[in-house]
């Protein structure tokens, strides 16, 4: 499949794009060019301007100044519909899906296949959706399922299919794979390469460095709203890229693991927990000062485990002991009172109230503490919030700013601040660094190590194996709702965790799924 093209220059050529919001300069004379038929990664720390640039290309916002040439012609993308009509399809970071529509309806929204009578043809929609799924080797998605019943990873797949269904000339993925498992990512890139050989260009934003390196042709690095440089992916080291992103050399190492004292008190014991949607006979122990990692392939019940410990499920069997005493964690507020904190999967909906201010979000879980006679003392609240902002180095203009205005990393810090305020003893982290830039990730590692140093217990589930290897004292591997392995000491290395997750033998190198 080849396309008619005008000329042979780059497909997309943006020059001197400038955009500011209020006083903040998001893009400052940024250049960017994407060739025909290439996979091009956009890199940069949070706030570097990548998302703004993508929003301009997809017609969500207009630049203050600058020119965009698309397929040899100078264009302006006046709306998402206009960008779509010109051949740009975008997979957005904030999922643009509809909970009450079916998978197929979501994919074809706005360009549904019609019958002769002008009615949406469910039959053709389902068939086309299935054909799309086949191209990616996905067989578990039902086109008729309601989106609200899908996991976050599956929703992201739907979002990708939605963009693919428009058969775009330029496909933009803004953090489009952050919830996907390794196999799905590899399949996706196999498909992207197929598209690329047909002349489609792909612009890709991701914070998963490893993922990017393998699959893309070129990389453009942004810093402070401007292009630092564009390099071929093959001849550039990880360290060099990070250096370009941060403007200084940073070592990728994790903070020192604090040694686990022999007499560390037992914080949390779980015995034979079953229930939720898929937990089966889970047992685990967490000591004060310990960072316990939960590994395994995507969707093996890790998320359910954290939610169960936070009291989100009812009717669980098994026993839970906190500080050596039996505890019944049947509701989140009971778990909270018992000293358990959950940094949830989706900070935007489960972790924060986005329209509310930084101050209100931080103090939300602990309001009575600033109270006097049932009224909140604003002074005490402010003093406390200011301490938290300083302690976690949250970058905010003012504490009255809405949480919505913060970058992903700072939003995640808000969630953590809220729970630190409760004085919780057990911290459950659900994929805490998803969609967060490298610098903030490091800050998070420090915070997690710090919690352990203070004698608190931490359970981390993350899709990034390197984080488990770098942070944890012990790693439990889950498969199909069960705990299948426990790794300790020297066993905690990336290859061994991966091997255990894939169910491979001891220390064997994991087979790479062919792309």
């Amino acid at each position, binding site marked *: 499949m080849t396309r008619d093209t005008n000329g042979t220059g780059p497909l997309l050529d943006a020059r001197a794009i400038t955009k500011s919001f209020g006083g903040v300069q998001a893009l400052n004379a940024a250049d960017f060019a994407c060739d025909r038929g290439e996979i091009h990664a956009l890199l940069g720390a949070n706030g570097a301007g990548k998302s703004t640039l993508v929003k301009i290309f997809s017609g969500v916002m207009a630049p203050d100044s600058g020119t965009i040439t698309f397929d040899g012609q100078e264009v302006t993308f006046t709306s998402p*519909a206009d960008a779509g009509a010109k051949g740009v399809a975008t997979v957005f970071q904030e999922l*643009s899906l*509809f909970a*009450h529509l079916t998978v197929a309806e979501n994919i074809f*929204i706005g360009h549904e296949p019609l019958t002769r009578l002008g009615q949406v043809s469910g039959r053709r929609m389902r068939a086309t959706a299935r054909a799309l799924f086949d191209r990616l080797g996905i067989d578990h998605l039902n086109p008729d399922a309601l989106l609200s019943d899908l996991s976050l990873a599956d929703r992201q797949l739907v979002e990708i299919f939605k963009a693919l269904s428009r058969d775009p000339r330029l496909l933009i993925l803004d953090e489009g794979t952050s919830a996907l498992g390794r196999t799905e990512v590899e399949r996706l890139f196999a498909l992207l390469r197929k598209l690329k050989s047909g002349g489609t260009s792909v612009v890709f934003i991701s914070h998963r460095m490893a993922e990017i390196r393998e699959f893309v042709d070129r990389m453009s690095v942004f810093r402070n709203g401007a292009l630092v440089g564009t390099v071929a992916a093959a001849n550039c080291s990880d360290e060099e890229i990070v250096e370009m992103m941060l403007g200084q050399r940073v070592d990728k190492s994790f903070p020192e693991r604090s040694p686990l004292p022999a007499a560390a008190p037992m914080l949390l014991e779980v015995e034979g927990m079953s229930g939720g949607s898929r937990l089966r006979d889970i047992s685990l122990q967490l000591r004060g000062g310990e960072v316990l990692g939960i590994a395994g392939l995507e969707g093996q019940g890790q998320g359910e485990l954290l939610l169960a410990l936070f009291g989100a499920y009812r009717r669980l069997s098994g026993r839970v002991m906190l500080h050596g005493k039996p505890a019944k964690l049947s509701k989140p507020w009971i778990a909270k009172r018992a000293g358990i904190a959950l940094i949830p999967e989706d900070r935007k909906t489960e972790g924060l109230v986005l329209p509310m201010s930084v101050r209100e979000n931080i103090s939300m879980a602990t309001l009575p503490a600033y109270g006097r006679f049932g009224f909140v003392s604003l002074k005490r609240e402010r003093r406390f919030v200011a301490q938290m902002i300083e302690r976690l180095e949250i970058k905010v203009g003012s504490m009255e700013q809405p949480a919505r205005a913060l970058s992903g990393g700072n939003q995640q810090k808000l969630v953590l601040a809220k729970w630190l305020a409760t004085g919780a003893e057990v911290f459950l982290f659900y994929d805490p660094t998803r969609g967060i830039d490298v610098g903030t990730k490091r800050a998070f590692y420090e915070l997690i190590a710090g919690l352990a140093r203070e004698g608190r217990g931490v359970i981390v589930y993350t899709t990034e194996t390197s984080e488990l290897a770098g942070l944890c004292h012990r790693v439990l591997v889950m498969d199909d709702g069960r705990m299948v392995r426990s790794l300790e000491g020297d066993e905690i290395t990336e290859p061994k965790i991966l091997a255990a997750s894939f169910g491979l033998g001891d220390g064997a190198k994991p087979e790479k799924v062919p792309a």
Partner: protein
Amino acid sequence: MIFRRYNTSVLAVVALGLLLIYYYIRQPLILSPFGAKILANQGTTLALAALAQLVVVLTGGVDLSVGAVVSLSNCIAATYMGSHPASVIAVCVLTLAVGAGAGLLNGVLVAYGRIQPIIVTLATLYIFSGLALMVRPQPGGLVPPFYANALTGGWGYLPYALVALFVVLFAVWTPLMRSRLGTAIRAVGDNPGGAHMSGINVPRTLILAYVMGGVFAAAAGLYLTAQTTSGDAAIGTSYTLNSVAAVVFGGALLGGGRGVAPGPVIAAYFLSIIISVLFAAGISPFYQSVFQGGILMVVLVFGNLWTLRTRNWLTILKN
């Protein structure tokens, strides 16, 4: 599964079924051609008003002017209809056009005025009520018997009211909701930002939804005219809140995005018939409202109990 969408209507079906059984035990005469006609006629106006409300609720809004449009179209129809079939048809078309115009005003204000739907339609509620009073300061008017018969009569056990309703449902509502516009309406109510990002023309979708709502509300007014054979500028008032109740009872989400026609339509019949049932049960008209509200509350709570069985609290709070 796609049929799950219709699960939300089950509550209304069960409630109406139980109500009719109880009514039959109290008053066996309802199982007759005459009884069927009475039952059907009683609920059809509210059923049409519920469709008017549903299409707006699907976009995430609410239309407080439904009742005023019912009054306005009732007054126009009863005042100008005349007795010649041609003038009757012409006035019916005119009335529906006035309804569309009313919806257009609501839609434009919501889409481009950046005003909350509840405020927009509260304002237009006053405007449309005022217009109805201007058309018909005193109750009265002239409605030809053949018009009333055509909509309130029946053929054996088959009331014409149900025929009319089914024509509206299958010839108008269903094709509209199965068009791209129908999906767009639900998408806009579900996630307006996402709809915009998906290339949907959100203002246009909103406007068309309100226009549809206006037309259905005018249709409700036309039916009411056949039922009462007169025009009254105050007659529609109760239909605003009852249509909202029918929509919620019928399983639609007030936040938008979720809802199918059968639920609200059946709920409308429930809410209309229950008044007669209370009367048949010997409940004093003084206590009628209390019972009506109480029954509605019990049914809704009962219907929602199943969601509490869900294991994850988060899914409950998100719905």
